[in-house]
């Protein structure tokens, strides 16, 4: 008998996934098998089979931050876009549990019925999924007030490479029982397990906010203002420094009771005047500027991290390279640079790494620039963790720090 052809092998494999999960949860296109789970069990079944067969598995949500280095050649894809249910919203306890494929905006709309939200403003909320946002540890301007995902995720269900279903944390905000495995999953880019369900702590949506923008030709005065505001008693909910052809712009959002917000506005204006600057009401889309910085076609997109005091100098360097960026007051920048810019990126990376920060390429890297930069001294430990969780190296292989 002849050896089975490639097509026959593919059909055989597809049949095995169909048998294990049910045909309605499996589809194939372009030579790879897609799993479309609606329950954690489906993911577990798919992983058990992939693990037994030693098949590489790629995990994807809304594909909003699909990076060039995620291998397109994976034979199995877990697509979480049908894993969308908001399982529970215990509004009296300010918690909710949701499946990982739920789109961010859909979750927020459901929570908004009780005036609550997950206090995070990630990129592309209309398309990005809960799981993808967590796997990439995205955060926006609200991080200044509410913290990042590690402060907001209180429980998680994950499926390990061998199909084991494990739960971490729970449904209460305060909980120190066992290791915080869910923190390990945040930002791990799917290399340690598949996130299928998440429990968040919630906050009340602030009802009264007001945003101001302060323009300046040079970065230093607005950088100084940023530090002064951080050191003030203003109820600052969000703050970012960005650049444009016209110069540098500091956006500040205050959130307070209506009786208080006018007082705070006066206090802010007087701080601004003290630096010989002017504050005007922000145009409506300033808090969406991260998306603009992230999505310029043909540009190299980077993320850099720094201390607040280094924000103006870093943005000045981006400006000098012909790029544009948005830096949150927490010290996280999304910026784009025109190609080729290799030298410029390497210089900038050296500058932020010397100050203890990092610069990573998040999209359309410049040739010759490594995605991650200096490897952490804990890289061996990270590799050991990866090996413990995924000894066969089948989950999103090669896409993470140091080739993990």
């Amino acid at each position, binding site marked *: 008998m002849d050896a089975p052809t490639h097509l026959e092998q593919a059909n055989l494999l597809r049949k095995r996934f169909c048998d294990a999960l049910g045909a309605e949860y499996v589809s194939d296109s372009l030579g790879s098998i897609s799993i479309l789970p609606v329950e954690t069990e489906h993911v577990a079944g798919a992983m058990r089979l992939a693990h037994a067969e030693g098949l590489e598995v790629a995990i994807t949500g809304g594909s909003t931050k699909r990076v060039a280095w995620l291998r397109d050649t994976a034979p199995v894809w877990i697509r979480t876009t049908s894993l969308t249910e908001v399982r529970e919203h*215990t509004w*009296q306890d300010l918690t909710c549990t949701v499946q990982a494929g739920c789109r961010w905006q859909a979750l927020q709309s459901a929570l908004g019925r009780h*005036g609550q939200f997950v206090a995070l403003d990630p990129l592309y909320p209309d398309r990005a999924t809960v799981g993808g946002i967590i796997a990439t*540890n995205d955060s926006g301007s609200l991080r200044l007030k509410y*913290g*990042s995902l*590690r402060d907001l995720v209180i429980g998680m269900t994950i499926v390990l490479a061998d199909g*084991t279903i*494990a*739960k971490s944390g*729970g*449904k*209460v905000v*305060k*909980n*120190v*029982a*066992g*290791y*915080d*495995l869910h*923190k*390990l999953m945040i*930002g*791990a880019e799917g290399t340690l397990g598949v996130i299928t369900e998440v429990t968040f702590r919630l*906050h009340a949506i602030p009802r009264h906010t007001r945003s101001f923008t302060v323009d300046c030709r040079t970065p230093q005065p607005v950088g100084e203002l940023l*530090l002064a505001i*951080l*050191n003030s*008693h203003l109820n600052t909910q969000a703050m970012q420094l960005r650049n444009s052809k016209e110069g540098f712009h500091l956006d500040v959002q205050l959130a*307070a*009771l209506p*009786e*208080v917000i006018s*007082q705070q506005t006066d206090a802010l204006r007087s701080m601004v005047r003290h630096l010989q600057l002017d504050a005007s009401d922000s145009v409506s889309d300033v808090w969406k500027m991260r998306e603009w910085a992230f999505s310029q076609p043909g540009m190299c997109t980077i*993320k850099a*991290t*720094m*201390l*607040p*005091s280094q924000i103006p100098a870093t943005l000045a360097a981006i400006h000098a390279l012909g790029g544009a960026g948005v830096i949150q007051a*927490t*010290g*996280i920048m999304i910026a784009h640079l025109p190609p080729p810019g290799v030298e410029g990126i390497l210089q900038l990376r050296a500058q932020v790494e010397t100050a*203890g*920060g*990092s610069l990573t390429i998040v999209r359309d890297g410049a040739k010759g620039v490594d995605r991650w930069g200096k490897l*952490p*001294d*804990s*890289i061996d*430990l*990270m590799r*050991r*963790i990866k*090996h*413990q*969780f995924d000894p066969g190296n089948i989950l999103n292989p090669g896409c*993470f*720090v140091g080739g993990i």
Partner: protein
Amino acid sequence: MTSAAATREQAGLSEELLAQFARTVGDGGIIVERSQLQTYECDGLTAVRNVPAAVLLPRTRDEVQSIILLCAQHKIPFVARGAGTGLSGGALPAAGGIVLSFARMNRILAVDTVNQRVTVEPGVINTHITQRVAAAGYFYAPDPSSQTVCTIGGNVAENAGGAHCLKYGFTTTHVLGLEVILPTGELVHFGSSPPDAPGYDLAGVFVGSEGTLGVATAITLRIVKRPEEVQVLLAAFNTIAAAGQTVSDIIAASILPAAMEIMDRLSIEAAEVSVHPGYPACEALLLVELDGSHAEVELQIKQVQQLCRANGAWEDRLAQSVGERMLVWKGRKAAFAAAGRLAPNYIVQDGVIPRTKLPVILEEIAVMAAETGLRVTNVFHAGDGNLHPIVLYDASIPAQEALAVDLSIRILHRCVDHGGSITGEHGVGREKQQAMGYMYSEPDMDTMQLVRCAFDPDNLANPDKLFPRPRLCGEKSGPYTPHPLEVSGVAEFF
């Protein structure tokens, strides 16, 4: 050979190895006398004791690394110890193991108020950070009740909380970066002073790992701007349920106080006798601390007062001065110690429930207490559903201790049944190992073990803690059926 030396030999710690340890820490850095070692035989969980083989008091990171390298080479278990104030046996030594005391590593290494960060050694006392940055208008937010004596290293190991974590978050919220010696002796850094260091969030998994993943030698922490205005309201209620309802109403009104605490009559009376905070005599006392801008606090205090009165509070008053406010908190934070005035012995528990389950669980605790004939007094962080039931008993009465232990574990099980946790801030340690198996399934705990095996393949860092039973790295898990006595907490699996 003295008896202490014989014990050491038995644990694999030869006189020669001991001399090597002594060389790493220099004169005055090692304790081997049995009478002195007894100081280190337990922490705040005094019911379980092990005399360590030796206590080492390193002064530098390099000394810590040398000690741990020796431990790794000779397979000697070790546990780090700060002030020994932990309540779950986290700093309990392994029999024949080493204690690493951080009493001599207590320097504040760097203060950067511009970027709102400090870097400290693990032996620094929690309140010393606030004292250091107060003049610049900042404070360190996590405030466990033992904050005037407990150390940051211990806070990191346990992910310590406190009354004010309702608004400000836990220790893990404030840890930005860590310098760590792994159980293998490797020196590594987790996180960084700027946010989002590339790679896995190892700081996230290390904080709260109860000393089982290594030893921190330097910690970078976030400090917080001191609010412009702070007010504390005391409200007296006839029932705990009414106080609990008020807490829910405050949250529903979109107010996030800095702290919300409830004390029951027994706790109030005990605190009154011990530190005289001037609490009203009532069935349930609700303490609400609000902070923020002057105008905001003024508005919100009025709202909170209205909610208290609507739920039947017959007295509500503001602490009138900084001194009075401090006294109010001193009374609350002395609650555990004050329980000693109510009974010869007591067990403090640390269960968590979703806030809305407060009235139900308190009723259940009252029923369970009545059934056993033991008294239970309740002090709790009501805002985040963290209960501290204090089970009172007399160890000199035969079998009463076992009854008290059993009751306290059953209370934790009820917390889990309501969707909560067995510990909100005290940690699992040795005390609640068996209860872990009630909260998590075997696959959940096996997954946690993957992390431990990556960090500590030889199981040397604070072994036999946290998990129901030590499992060796590489060992396959089988279905584990706990003995009924274990489930009820009467017996422990050693």
